């Protein structure tokens, strides 16, 4: 698998520190970053903002047939995390005992390898979540 280097680089703030944005007009936070507030359209004013690093597990599934690049990690948990500000993000759930992976579980952000581009390629790091 080959990943675009500029794309990996551009997503560093988002992946390392959950930096998204917030509309100053209506107060809605967005993650990932976006260019236009769908609520305010041209009246919206988007500024960069760090998302909270904790949240709750909104939904989850266990992936057994992993896509290419993740074969060695299967089976693994994939979850939708609802952050403290209501933003929902898709993330791997790692380092969590099975009995704790339940809807509503408290989770916190961790820094992990997301994928490595073959033997010689770039390593992409970023957020995953684990149960507290």
């Amino acid at each position, binding site marked *: 698998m080959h990943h675009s280097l500029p794309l990996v680089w551009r997503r560093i703030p988002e992946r390392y520190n959950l930096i998204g944005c917030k509309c100053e007009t209506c107060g809605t936070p967005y993650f990932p970053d976006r260019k236009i507030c769908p609520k305010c359209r041209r009246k919206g004013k988007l500024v960069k903002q760090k998302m909270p690093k904790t949240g709750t597990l909104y939904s989850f599934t266990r992936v057994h047939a992993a896509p290419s690049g993740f074969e060695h*990690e299967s089976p693994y948990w994939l979850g939708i995390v609802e952050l403290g500000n209501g933003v929902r993000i898709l993330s791997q759930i790692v*380092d969590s005992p099975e009995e704790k992976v339940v809807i509503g579980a408290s989770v916190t952000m*961790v*820094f*992990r*390898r997301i994928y490595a581009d073959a033997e010689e390629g770039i*390593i992409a*790091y970023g957020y995953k979540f684990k149960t507290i």
Partner: protein
Amino acid sequence: MQATQIAGTGIAGYGASIPRMRVRVTEIARVWGKNGEQTAAGLGVSEKAVAGIDEDSCTLAVAAARKAVLGAKIDPQNIGAIYIGSESKPYAVKPTASIVAEALGATPNLTAADLEFACKAGTAGIQACMGMVASGMIDYGLAVGSDTSQGRPGDALEFSTGCGAGAFVIGAKDAIATIDGTTSFTTDTPDFWRRQHQEFPRHGGRFTGKPAYFRHVLGCANALFAKTGFKASDFDYAVFHQPNGKFPLEAGATLGIPREKLATGLVTPFIGNTYSAATMIGLCAILDEARPGQRILAVSYGSGAGSDAFALTVTEAILEEGRRPVKRVWDLINENKTYIDYAVYVKHRRKLKSM
């Protein structure tokens, strides 16, 4: 000989990270047809921490560093230098330090580099930060020791090589422990090495003991005593580099430091030798429980070979809310751990050539 007294520098924050998985020494011994109980007793190591498939020395460094910066209660933008000591870097060329800096929000106005000196590169980073802080070049520096080191399958090292990271924010203000003196002891001693492009290290077997570990650790501790005027009995706690569970106890006995002063910082029996992180995680464990006014002796050791020794005094600031990480080192060692067998261990540490 270098100066020892670095005016006014200390530890502003500290943090450790230890992965969740463990493999028992008896399990590794089973695979290689060795007597597990004897091997564990001989090394003084019962189990070791194993990094997950999505963890490496960089992710462990970030986890430890984030705790240290939180405890220091500083704006990451005030960190002027980051040094990462490791001998298991994810990239041969490309610094881990810049990734850690980005993950902390410390970029772009800082200097950063990776350091290598087998198991003592992390403490070398502490000394570099001390010098820069004392000279007024930077306000705060971050030194991290992080490793996910590997032994060749079947080699004696495989029983003891663990994974972990320890991080310290060094500064002049509001230190939770002052660094009252430091000294180093360095010689060209070929006890352990890994050549370029080789996956696993080689070592000199028994040669790693007397002329290597003990000469440097004891020589460095005695040099520190001579320079600072401290005696071994002045210290309430001591931590030495711990390639196994036995060497540090022997070093302590030679210096006249009783076992109970070493117990808090002796983590290798339960997580293995975490290389660059070993002395640093041990020091974190001591800071978790030491009281203001208590003195700590820390001596690292890196093959090749050298030691860095530090005399520290815990201050009242350690009692302030939030200065210690929420999870203590011994919580990380004991809680939420998962035992894996040798086959899963091999998979997680990518020791299979076809992976």
